Structures are given as C-alpha cells and as structure tokens.
C-alpha cells in the first residue's frame, strides 16, 4: 500500500545530471546496489509520458509513418500482383528475398549475444543481451513477412505447411524453401521463448515496484507469479542454459538453411559450398552492426552510460571486426574458386559481378564491408562512439549490398546469353523495404518503453560479483 503511494508521489524521471561512462575496463558503473539497479532500469518503463525523451516521441512517430507506407505497399501488391515489383524472367527474385536474408541475418546477433556469449560466460553481454534478443524477435518478424509477400499467390501460403487437405497433397520436402518454412518458424518461436523466459524474473520485479496498480496487475499476470524461490531459480537456470545450448546450433542452422536457398540451386554464383559458413558470418556481422546502431543512441537518450559501458560497446566492435574478416575471407574464396574451378560460367559470373552492369555495387560492398571496418583496429576509433556508430551503419548497408549482389548479379546473367536481363527495382520495392525498417524501429521503440531493456536480475548478479571483486572499504 504505502509502497504504491510512495511510487506515485515520486514521479520517475531519468537522472538529471549526465552520468559519465566509467570507461572501457569495467562492465558496470560504480556505486550500484540491488535496489538502485532496479530503479534505474525499471525507471525507464515507469517514466511518465511527459518526461519521456522528445527523441523517443519523434522517432516513434516517424517509424509509425513508415509502417503505414508498408501497409500501402502490401495493399498494392495484393491487389495487383508481384508485377508491381521490378521482377522479371530471368531475375525472378529481387528485393523481397534480399530483405528476407538481410533481416534474418540481423536477427542472428541477438541469439548469438544472449546464447553463445552466455555459454562463453562473457559478462559484458549482460547489459545488452535482453535488448538484442528483442532485436532478434523484431528482425525475424520483418524477415518472416517477405517469404509470404513475394509469393505469386500469397493467399495460398498455407500450402507450404504440412496439413491434411482435400487434395491429399503435401509440401515438397526437398525444396530449400520448405526448409525455410521450418527454420524460420522454429527460429521465431525459440527466440520468443528464450526472450520471455529471460524476462520472467524482471517482470516480477516490475510487478513489485510499478507505480500504478494497473501496471502491477499487468506485469503480475505476465510474471506468472514468479517469487524467486531458490528451487525455481535452480530449474530456471537449467532451462535457460539448455535454451542457450539449443539456440546456438539453431542460429547456425537457420542461416545455413537460408544460404541453401541459393547453394542448393544450379546457378553460377549461388551454387557454392562456401555459402553456409559465409552466410552465418555475414549474419552475425550485420547483427552486431545493428546492435551497435541501436544501443549507442539508446544509452545516451536514457542516460545509461554506466549500465551499458564502453567495455560492452568496444567488445561488440571488436567482435564485429573479427567476423568482418571472416566475411572478407568468404568473398576471397568465392572469387578464388570462381577462377580456380575453371568453370566458364562461374568465372564469367564473378567477372560480371565485378565489372558488369552492377559492378559499382560490388565495389561499394567491398568498401562498406571490408575496407572501412578495418578502422576498428585502432582503439581511438573504437572509443569514438560517433565513429563506431557510423561504421555500424555502413556495415548494415554493406551487408544489404552483399545480398543484392548474390541474388541479382547471379540471376541476371546465367547460362544462356539469350535469356540475360536486368533488374531495376520499382518504387514499390523500395516502399516495402522502407516499410519494414519502420516496422522494426517501431517495435524497438515500444519495447524500450514498456519492458526492461536490460536484464535486471543479471545486472544484480553483476553487482553481487562486483561487490566481491571490489575491496571491502569501498562498499558500505
């Protein structure tokens, strides 16, 4: 009772003075205790509208506009058909598939950070795992749209699912697209489960600290009555560990399968054994880029420099650099085998990719994905958030270009010169892509507003860990 009133009186607002970044060697700012951590993170959620940052409002509004654009584009598509896109024979796949692969890729960093880094006991992940899991979910939501939208008869998408029907017909399980159906839906489900399980204890915290009764009830329902029993924690941790253990091979399999969409075909430039590893690396690459793109502004807006510290960002940047090199290796080997295979189609394909009509995009891609990120070798750059942020954006663009190169330049000039063609995207191609970007951002904005964007209980563990690490006189 009194607790609630107290909460209501105290109108949550962000710490007024800018909290400095504690620097690149510690995960968590000093002077935190279990309670303050809760306040700081939950505070963002309790923030009354009048106090929520203008940037949030503006951002959310623009994202919403783009969501409407998406709806318009989809309406046009369903009324008229895929003809409104720049597709043709030979280039029967375009933006839709490019975006699908791109979004799925972005999703991967989330799972990677929360699962793989968890297994590797990387404590710096604590402050961004919740957030990147959310990112994964939303990216997969965007990705999931495209395979349906790009169908010639989208209203029949359910024919890709195995269900008993009056035709006695079933999906054709040799098709990579069928594999996608299972891979993507599994990935979506598991990401959701992983995310929600992670949220459970924090929802309980919100239930017990939220300022209004309504909020308490809502979070109360969502938290399923979690009360932090030692035994519950024990099972919880086991389940979480298992989920992490399952999500890791899953995330690898998903992008492997996505790469099969191409690798399984006969097309020069698609039919390549390097694709699975190289796609996974690319996915992680773009994923980390997206995490940085989102986290850097966010920690500034919500004044969380001491929760998401430079340590975290730098590690992410390093990882990005590392994965970027794997991607570069991918490009290298692709080019090498195109030449070494002695296959005239392969060889032509790669020359055409570099010097053909879409050549400029190839070089732009090399610039974005290989050349520029090398700047991250320098610590100066890594500590300059403006630069890191810019590079992360550039990498995102680069990874999109990569998918464009793979899809379009391979298709537009394949085996028989007589059937060569060009692909020129239409305004509706672009509208659909921009629309999903808006959809993604809107979900992100809503997430940070209504759910703890940092895992509170894990930060508590971190606090506990720090307290013991720190010399005795410094605390109390």
């Amino acid at each position, binding site marked *: 009772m009194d607790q609630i009133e107290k909460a209501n009186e105290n109108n949550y607002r962000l710490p007024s003075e800018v909290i400095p970044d504690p620097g690149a060697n510690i995960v968590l700012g000093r002077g935190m205790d279990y*309670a303050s951590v809760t306040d700081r993170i939950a505070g963002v959620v309790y923030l009354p509208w009048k106090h929520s940052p203008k940037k949030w409002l503006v951002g959310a509004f623009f994202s919403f506009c783009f969501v409407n654009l998406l709806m318009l584009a989809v309406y046009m598509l369903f009324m008229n058909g895929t003809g409104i896109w720049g597709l043709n024979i030979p280039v029967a796949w375009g933006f839709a598939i490019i975006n699908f692969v791109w979004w799925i890729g972005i999703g991967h960093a989330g799972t990677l950070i929360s699962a793989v880094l968890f297994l590797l006991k990387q404590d710096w992940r604590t402050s961004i795992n919740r957030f990147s899991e959310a990112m994964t979910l939303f990216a997969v939501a965007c990705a999931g749209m495209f395979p349906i939208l790009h169908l010639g008869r989208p209203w029949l998408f359910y024919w890709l699912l195995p269900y008993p029907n009056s035709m006695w017909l079933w999906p054709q*399980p040799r098709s990579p697209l069928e594999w996608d159906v299972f891979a993507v839906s599994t990935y979506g489900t598991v990401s959701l489960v992983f995310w929600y399980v992670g949220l459970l*204890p924090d929802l309980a915290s919100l239930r017990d600290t939220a300022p209004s009764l309504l909020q308490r009830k809502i979070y*109360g329902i969502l938290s399923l009555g979690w009360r932090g029993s030692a*035994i519950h924690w024990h*099972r919880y941790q*086991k*389940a979480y560990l298992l989920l992490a253990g399952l999500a890791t091979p899953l995330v690898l399999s998903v992008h492997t399968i996505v790469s099969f969409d191409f690798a399984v075909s006969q097309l020069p430039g698609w039919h390549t054994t390097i694709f699975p590893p190289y796609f996974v690396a690319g996915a992680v690459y773009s994923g980390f880029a997206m995490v940085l793109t989102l986290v850097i502004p966010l920690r500034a807006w919500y004044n969380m420099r001491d929760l998401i510290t430079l340590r975290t960002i730098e590690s992410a940047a390093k990882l990005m650099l590392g994965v970027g090199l794997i991607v570069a290796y991918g490009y290298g080997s692709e080019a090498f085998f195109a030449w070494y295979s002695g296959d005239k189609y392969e060889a032509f394909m790669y020359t055409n990719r570099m010097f053909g009509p879409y050549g400029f995009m190839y070089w732009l891609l090399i610039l974005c994905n290989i050349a520029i990120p090398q700047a991250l070798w320098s610590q100066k750059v890594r500590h300059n958030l403006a630069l890191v942020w810019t590079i992360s954006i550039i990498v995102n663009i680069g990874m999109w270009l990569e998918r464009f190169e793979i899809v379009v330049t391979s298709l537009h000039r394949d085996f028989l010169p007589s059937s060569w063609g060009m692909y020129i995207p239409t305004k509706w191609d672009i509208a659909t892509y921009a629309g999903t970007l808006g959809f993604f951002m809107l979900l992100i904005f809503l997430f940070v507003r209504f759910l703890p964007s940092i895992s509170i209980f894990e930060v508590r563990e971190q606090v506990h860990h720090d307290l013991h690490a720190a010399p005795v006189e410094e605390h109390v």
Partner: protein
Amino acid sequence: MSHAVSTKRYEGLHGALVEFQTPEELLEACEKAYAEGYRKMDAYAPMPVEGLAEAIGFKKNKVAMCVLIAGCTGVCFGLGLLEWISQIAYPHNVGGRPLNSWPAFIPITFECMILFSALTAMVSMLAMNGLPRPYHALFNVPSFERASVDRFFLCIESEDPKFEPDETVGFLKALGGGEVNYVPE
C-alpha cells in the same frame, strides 16, 4: 514443495518468514535451518544465488531429462513426417530424385528437434515450478515485495513436522536477520 498442500497443522498459517540484506546471510541461515532439522522451507532471492537450493536440500532437477526426451521425439516426428509424405502419402518423381532423399530431409528434422526441445525446456520448467501462480501466501507479507528487488528471505513452512510457531520464530530471530513475520494463508 511449499505449495504441495498436505495435512495442515496450523490453519491459516503458511509459515514464518525472515528477511536478510545479503545472499551470503541467507545462505548461511538456510544451512543452519537445515542443520536444525527443518525440511519444509524455501529461500527467496531477487537473483539466482549459488548453492541456495542445495542448502535447503533440493536435489533432483528433471528439466534436462524432459528436454532430452522431447529432442528425440522431435527427430522422430520430423523424419517420420517427411518420409511418410514423400514415400507413402503421395509419392512423386521430383527431378529424378529417389523417394527417400534422406539428405534433403536433414534440415527439417533438425529444426523439429530444436523446436520440440526448446518448448519443452520452458514448459517443463514452469510446470515443475508450479507456475503460473499469481496468488501466493507469501505475498501477504508486505515486505516480501522486496524479494524481487533487494531483499533475501527464508520461509519455514507450517507443514514442516518440526514447525512450532513460537519455537521456529525464535529460531529465525536467532539467525540474526532482519524482521521476522508470520505468513498468513
């Protein structure tokens, strides 16, 4: 477990609750209580505390086993479905490939395994924890709100054969934690 309601010895009394500032104190208290012979008790913390469950005598954690079983089921389901589809339900000559194109069936089989296991991991965990359980006697204690924020609690339940209200409270007070409360049903 605490909610496995059996013969009630004290109507309207769930147990006695003691509050601590740090996980270390709680852990110590639990060990003492266990040594004292208390069995029906539970400890509460806003974050996982290593060794706490063991301290109150929790042994077998069945989550892993469930997940393993689910995983195997997933594999059988996935592969079974595909083989049935392509060999029995409606056999087609697809690009001259054999009906049993097992290499092509691996991805879906794998995904099914993951899906089944992951769902089971969550469901079994919740089920065994008896969640959802929005109402619980402990919530009657106002201070218990902080169990999800920054306080650590030990609750000895009235069902414990060794539970005697005054005695137990006395024992808890002696543990040197914060305030001690009865937990009304």
